[in-house]
């Protein structure tokens, strides 16, 4: 069974499923349109995420100091980013004192090379991995599998995404876009469960049984990092499933991969972050496990890989550096009307939703130029963010950078040029308005057609008979007969 899984996963990876090819170069709106083919399912997806948003509201309101906690979390991260250089050195020193080996990776490729060399030195050919968006971003699984090392994602949602050869669609709920029947079908194929089985408890039990065998047989484990404490040289991993711990405590080698921004200065700062993380993420008071790793177990090797991969560059972007405060709770996704209706995979990036849309252009501005436009700028994301990132302001600012750099989506660039010209000339503005009203009245299909996304699922408004300027000039001259 297990060998079959590895074979099928390896084969799938061998057919070049790096996320860029997975998304086939499609835009956010194209991918969201594909997700919207199943209208009933989109309604479910929308409601499921909104339910989590409501749970977050309910639990946060039970804490009178909630807004002060958000402010404190935000300020701690502001301070951290402003002194990151010194905290990195302090963290490195303390890790080494604790007997943990430290590695620095400037790029995703370097991160993958480091992980590979650690495993190869121990002759490890099978690794179990807990949830780590960073290693998804680095495409570590594909890299290792090409070199003969199999990787099993152990978070249930990520495991499901892995056997379906899809990237995660949400940082906290990797397969929230999938129906239980689809998951039942995948388990039937990969785990031999009964055909047609879709009961979540029974499916979870099947995965538990299979993955327990995986945990017990893996000598190498990789985890992500939620918070890394500079002061003590320990790192904290938060899970509800217990998968990170099952992997790490049974392994000979534990590798923890983290972005530079995961640091926090002091240990007691964990109290602030652990109070807001799970409440913001899924509306529970804390994750079931908040594991503090400080020293390897006797006989075990522990490694921390500090990864830059664009983070120091983002730190230098004045308008966008606050995106590095993110603690990956996913609350901006749960609240976003575009995310809820379009699905996470429409963002063609590892980190999806509003936060993904402000992180992705830093990684590849051309490929992700459409993402800052995938928003209504309603600001709900900024209002729920536990570290108070001004996400919607940054989305707006990225649009300007992207247009200036010449990466604006084509239709938008043409439209904006025409708009700039029209708005800068009163004569042109007046005649354009007149023409527009005439078109809406006499040839509405010129606007309401498949080329104009604004008219999808919308009706044409009735055109006014005259412009506001015309109305005002009549009214002003005392003619009340309007």
């Amino acid at each position, binding site marked *: 069974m297990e060998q079959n899984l590895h074979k099928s996963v390896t084969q799938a990876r061998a057919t070049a499923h790096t996320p860029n090819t997975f998304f086939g170069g499609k835009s956010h709106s194209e991918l969201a349109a594909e997700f919207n083919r199943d209208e009933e399912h989109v309604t479910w997806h929308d409601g499921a995420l909104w*339910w989590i948003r409501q749970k977050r509201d309910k639990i946060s309101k039970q804490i009178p*100091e909630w807004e002060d906690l958000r402010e404190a979390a935000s300020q701690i991260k502001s301070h951290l980013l402003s002194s990151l250089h010194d905290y990195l050195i302090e963290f490195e020193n303390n890790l080494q004192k604790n007997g943990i080996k430290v590695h620095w990776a400037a790029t995703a490729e370097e991160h993958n090379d480091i992980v590979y060399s650690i495993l190869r030195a121990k002759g490890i050919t099978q690794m179990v991995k807990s949830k780590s968006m960073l290693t998804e971003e680095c495409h570590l699984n594909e890299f290792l599998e090409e070199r003969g090392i199999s990787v099993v994602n152990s978070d*249930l949602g990520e495991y499901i995404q892995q056997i379906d050869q899809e990237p995660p669609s949400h940082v906290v709920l990797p397969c929230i876009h999938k129906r239980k029947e689809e998951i039942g079908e995948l388990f039937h194929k990969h785990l031999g469960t009964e055909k047609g089985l879709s009961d979540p408890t029974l499916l979870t*039990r099947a995965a538990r049984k299979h993955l327990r065998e995986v945990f017990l047989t893996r000598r190498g484990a990789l985890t992500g990092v939620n918070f890394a404490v500079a002061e003590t040289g320990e790192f904290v991993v938060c899970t509800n499933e217990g998968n990170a*711990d099952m992997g790490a405590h049974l392994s000979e080698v534990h590798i923890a991969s983290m972005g530079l921004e995961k640091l926090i200065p002091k240990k007691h700062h964990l109290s602030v972050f652990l109070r807001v993380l799970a409440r913001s993420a899924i509306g529970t008071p804390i994750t079931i496990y*908040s594991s503090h790793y*400080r020293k390897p177990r006797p006989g075990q090797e522990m490694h921390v890989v500090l990864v830059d991969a664009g983070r120091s560059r983002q*730190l230098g972007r004045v308008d966008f550096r606050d995106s590095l405060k993110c603690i990956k709770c996913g609350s901006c996704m749960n609240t976003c009307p575009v995310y809820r209706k379009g699905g996470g995979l429409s963002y063609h990036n590892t980190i999806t939703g509003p936060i993904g849309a402000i992180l992705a252009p830093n990684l590849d501005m051309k490929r992700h130029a459409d993402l800052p436009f995938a928003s209504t700028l309603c600001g709900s994301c900024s209002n729920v963010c536990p570290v108070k990132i001004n996400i919607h302001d940054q989305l707006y600012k990225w649009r300007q950078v992207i247009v200036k750099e010449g990466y604006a989506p084509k239709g938008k660039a043409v439209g904006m040029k025409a708009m700039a010209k029209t708005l800068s000339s009163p004569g042109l503005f007046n005649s354009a308005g007149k023409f527009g009203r005439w078109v809406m009245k006499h040839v509405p299909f010129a606007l309401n057609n498949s080329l104009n996304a604004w008219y999808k699922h919308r009706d044409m408004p009735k055109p006014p008979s005259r412009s506001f300027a015309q109305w005002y000039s009549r009214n002003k001259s005392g003619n009340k007969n309007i």
Partner: protein
Amino acid sequence: MSSREKILSEVLKNQPPAVPLPLISFKGNEQDNVQEYIDTFIGIGGKAVKVDDTDSVKALIGEQFDTSKRMITTLSEFADTLELYSPQADPHSFENVELAVIKAHLAVAENGAVWVTEEVMGQRIIPFICQHLGVLVDAATIVPTMHEAYAKIGSGDYGFGVFIGGPSKTADIEQALVMGAHGPLSMTVFIVNR
């Protein structure tokens, strides 16, 4: 230039001017920590019971768990009913453990979590690999919030420590809550009044 030097120099070049750390002075409400703890923990899906002594815990274990299976502990007062295990044993050897009983350093009323370190776990894997977890909490060690918890923990001298706030769970399949993802299917906290 090594990657370390390259990263550090880029960070130094790009980081904004220093801003001060905020003063963290949050405090919880000390009214009835025990009752708040019980309400929260049951709300999460855990079981919490008040007990007077070790004997009542032993009686509850006999009633609620399959005593024909392997039951282990780090606590010498349970040595007559449960297996005292060796901290040096191979962690894989605990795969067949039905129930593990350990003692927590402290518990947190606002979120139901107990704080345990390697010292009281004996082995790091124990509270994760067992099918059911039992934790003894001294009522006097229950604090209102995480702020008081970290104040008590301080720097701490441990290789591994963990807050555990209930049985392992997942809701990855259509948001349906399932207890027992990879870790324990149930968690019982015995609150000992001394």
